[in-house]
């Protein structure tokens, strides 16, 4: 069985992305909320946000047919309902947040495993029970769920007066196990849309929190008009989790239900009827279709039209301009109080209003004293199916998250890359046009042309900057995730470490952020587990400052520098040296190692100073993987430490992964470029410094070093290149441990280029092994070949650079 509703497969991407974002956001809010003294002092906004998040996840998971996720989210939502309504009598903040984090993690895991058909859906029953138990504890008793012991009476608004003859009613019962029948119902109704006109459903608002309960109790009533009854019944019967779908007629109501009401009863909110009102005042309840985005605006138009026939005394809600007015109207309808001589005209105007669903004249509940209309006890009132009486058809789920209207747009990275490509193409074409050889000799007549071309250049430059900046995101997105790591570790290790951010608004390329997540987590874990001492140890060492881990980010020349600093115990160079020696990691005499080199053993493979392996670190695998990951994107990881003061791990990554500064040369007529970062200096050498030893090895003697000579012409098999070192140009390069002097014909320029790897079609040529990293298109449209310095220096010298 597929994991989710098959018809929803196309939605999977969106669902995963959106839910992922929501969960990430949820973590952030949870972190913030946890700072509060106790549950009562959590900010209302945060509670509402968590509640809304869970509600959305519940809904979309149910939409996808992922019952386990939706039930779990539902349980969390229930929990927060209690907190939001403050109906708890006792609380347990620790337990609550542990449970919330656990659930959030479970949801995240489930989400990640979703595309993999082989991993079955996880059973969250245990977790859900835990949440329910905690919820019961909060409410002060062992009883589960709200008090909903009303006798199962059928909703009394299934049949209304004045319904068309051909309107059919179906009663759909869902199986017990169906967690969110309301969401299933929405899908069902959408499907029905193809063959029938669905007029309304009972319960009316499937998006409502109580809709699920209503459907579970009484089933879902769908009122529709159709020409193709067979198709409708087929759709109903094939719906997921549908147990039975049978036509329902009025007589059933009488026999099956209790106390059917002939008169449609309208849930009249407080304030519609005031104690001393004019007798002539007529009241109409107007409800709008749920698809109507701004009923308040529609209402205003309507009121203006009414002005011609009637005197509108007031409306409920009174202020249609108010932000909340739309919600209220969607929920309970719009009440218009007016005095008129022409009732017919008024009713016509109302009926003809756009998006109007129903217009019902409302009579004052004469017998009832005013007090009784007021919702004296909000709790039981809400539980009764009365609230489900709003006259609205199934809502296609959406208008719930009105507050956080996103001003962000999610775009596929591919599209951005394409845009970037196009822009570079424009820049290149532009420079080709402006420096076209056809213009030569016309300089005196080109005043206006030059002026416009300068303008064009300015614009294209700006365009390029903007497009580049689109890919930039603040590092805070990567930093924020560490909050969670620190919190979890504090809970288990009891080190009470504080996480501090600096420069978190530093912007870096999106691909760097994506790559940073894992390394940062390892480093932060390491800092807390290995670096920060236990409170007792700190006290013994006389440290009064709170244990702190500082994450900072900033730019340094063309690099992003991200560091993680702790004020913990620091590392003992001697201890590390001993361990490195024991593990056979030394490559030169012990006394030649500088302190810096010694500390960097820590990030080498198979090294861990911590004697005991903990849950978080100590296996000595983490850090070298971190190092490799960083190096893969051209970055560097360095370590520094002071015994007793703390350690710092620093990551340096080139600002943009694709743009590189290069030095371009000509070799045998071809343009060859070397990354500027590995070039030490370029010089022309004289005859005396060129050395050939008896075995034919060639060296260049530069100051006090003897460096191997690599002729680019011969390793790249380019003919007609300069062979005499004194005629060409020498480039002293160093990459890692390897250094050498490259010989090229002449220096062309230094420039910034975008390195494009060779087409995968050329994989069979092993260009990388031959020392070629890729190619790059230059400003004038010509191309240059970029060398892979690691393989050029490493492969050709085959030995370590001469040490003096």
């Amino acid at each position, binding site marked *: 069985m597929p994991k989710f509703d098959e018809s929803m497969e196309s939605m999977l991407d969106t669902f995963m992305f959106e839910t992922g974002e929501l969960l990430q956001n949820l973590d952030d809010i949870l972190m913030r909320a946890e700072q509060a003294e106790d549950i009562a002092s959590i900010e209302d906004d945060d509670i509402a946000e968590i509640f809304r998040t869970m509600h959305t996840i519940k809904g979309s998971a149910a939409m996808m047919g992922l019952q386990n996720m939706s039930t779990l989210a539902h349980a969390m939502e229930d929990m927060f309902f209690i907190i939001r309504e403050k109906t708890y009598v006792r609380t347990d903040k620790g337990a609550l947040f542990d449970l919330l984090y656990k659930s959030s993690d479970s949801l995240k895991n489930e989400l990640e495993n979703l595309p993999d058909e082989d991993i079955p859906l996880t059973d969250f029953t245990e977790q859900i029970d835990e949440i329910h138990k905690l919820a019961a504890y909060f409410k002060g008793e062992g009883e589960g769920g709200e008090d909903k012991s009303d006798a199962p009476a059928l909703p009394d608004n299934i049949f209304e007066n004045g319904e068309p003859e051909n309107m059919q009613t179906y009663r759909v019962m869902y199986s017990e196990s169906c967690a969110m029948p309301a969401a299933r119902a929405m899908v069902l109704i959408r499907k029905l849309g193809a063959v029938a006109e669905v007029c309304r459903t009972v319960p009316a608002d499937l998006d409502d929190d109580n809709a699920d309960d209503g459907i579970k109790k009484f089933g879902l009533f769908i009122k529709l008009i159709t020409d193709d009854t067979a198709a409708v019944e087929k759709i109903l019967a094939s719906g997921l989790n549908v147990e039975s779908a049978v036509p329902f007629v009025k007589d059933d109501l009488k026999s099956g239900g209790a106390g059917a009401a002939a008169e449609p009863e309208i849930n009249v909110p407080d304030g519609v009827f005031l104690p001393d009102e004019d007798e002539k005042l007529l009241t109409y309840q107007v409800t709008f279709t749920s698809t109507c985005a701004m009923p308040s605006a529609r209402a205003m138009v309507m009121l203006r039209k009414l002005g011609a026939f009637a005197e509108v005394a007031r409306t409920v809600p009174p202020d249609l301009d108010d932000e909340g007015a739309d919600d209220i109207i969607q929920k309970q309808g719009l009440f218009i109080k007016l005095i008129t001589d022409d009732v017919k005209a008024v009713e016509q105007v109302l009926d003809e209003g756009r998006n109007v669903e129903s217009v019902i004249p409302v009579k004052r509940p004469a017998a009832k004293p005013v007090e009784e209309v007021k919702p004296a006890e909000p709790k039981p009132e809400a539980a009764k199916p009365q609230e489900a009486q709003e006259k609205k058809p199934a809502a296609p789920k959406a208008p719930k998250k009105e507050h956080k209207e996103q001003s962000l747009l999610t775009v596929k990275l591919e599209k951005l890359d394409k845009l970037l*490509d196009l822009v570079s*193409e424009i820049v290149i074409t532009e420079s080709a046009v402006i420096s076209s050889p056809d213009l030569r000799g016309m300089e005196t007549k080109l005043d206006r042309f030059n002026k416009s071309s300068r303008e064009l250049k300015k614009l294209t430059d700006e365009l390029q900057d903007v497009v580049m900046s689109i890919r930039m995101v603040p590092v805070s997105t990567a930093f924020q995730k560490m909050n969670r790591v620190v919190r979890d570790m504090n809970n288990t290790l009891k080190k009470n470490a504080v996480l501090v951010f600096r420069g978190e608004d530093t912007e870096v390329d999106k691909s760097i952020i994506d790559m940073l997540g894992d390394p940062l987590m390892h480093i932060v874990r390491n800092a807390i587990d290995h670096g920060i001492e236990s409170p007792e140890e700190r006290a013994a060492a006389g440290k009064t400052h709170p244990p702190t881990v500082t994450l900072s980010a900033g730019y340094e020349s063309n690099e992003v520098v991200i560091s993680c600093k702790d004020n913990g115990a620091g590392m003992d160079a001697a201890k590390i040296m001993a361990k490195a020696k024991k593990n056979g990691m030394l490559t030169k005499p012990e006394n030649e190692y500088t302190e810096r080199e010694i500390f960097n053993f820590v990030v080498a493979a198979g090294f861990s100073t911590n004697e005991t392996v903990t849950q978080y670190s100590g296996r000595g695998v983490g850090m070298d993987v971190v190092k490799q990951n960083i190096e893969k994107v051209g970055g560097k990881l360095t370590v520094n430490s002071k015994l007793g003061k703390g350690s710092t791990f620093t990551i340096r990554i080139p600002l943009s992964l694709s743009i590189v500064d290069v030095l371009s040369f000509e070799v045998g007529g071809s343009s060859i470029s070397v990354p500027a970062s590995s070039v030490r200096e370029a010089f022309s050498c004289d005859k005396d410094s060129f050395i050939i030893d008896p075995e034919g090895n060639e060296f260049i003697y530069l100051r006090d070093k003897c460096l191997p000579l690599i002729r680019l012409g011969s390793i790249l*098999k380019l003919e007609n290149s300069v062979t005499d070192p004194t005629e060409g140009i020498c480039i002293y390069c160093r990459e890692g441990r390897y250094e050498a002097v490259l010989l090229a014909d002449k220096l062309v320029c230094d420039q910034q280029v975008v390195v494009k790897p*060779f087409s995968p079609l050329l994989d069979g*040529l092993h260009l990388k092994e031959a020392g*070629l990293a890729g190619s790059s298109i230059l400003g004038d449209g010509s191309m240059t*070949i970029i060398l892979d310095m690691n393989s050029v220096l490493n492969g050709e010298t085959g030995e370590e650079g001469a040490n003096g």
Partner: protein
Amino acid sequence: MADLNELFENGGQLLTFSAAENCYGFYILDVADIIEIPELTKIPTAPDFVLGLMNHRGKAVPVMDLRLRLGLPEGEFDERSCIIVLEINTLQCGLRVDRVLDAELIRPEDITRSPVENGMVKGFVIRDGKERISILDPEILVRT
């Protein structure tokens, strides 16, 4: 990349071109562009049949020589020689040919499959009174 089997079963448009007096064809859906020979950037250490890279709409696209790729003698190129840009699973590759001849509709009954599996030539178009066309498999041709 278009499926050559589709061509063999239902027929279709064939872009025909010549190299060293022989006539070859690509299924037209494999062809992205036909362009003049641009400036080429030599790839050091690459074999002779790889002519180099060209800047094709901001992308560095490798260019190969059909004659050398098929082991035919190197030819002279004139202004009618051109590059056929092939698109293979979104990857582009240029192929230098002597000249492009025609785009013709081929009926399936005129096509004979080659018995060689994974060869560069997938089949032949043999019709009375007309030159034989060898249908090339672009992927096998340009993948090194």
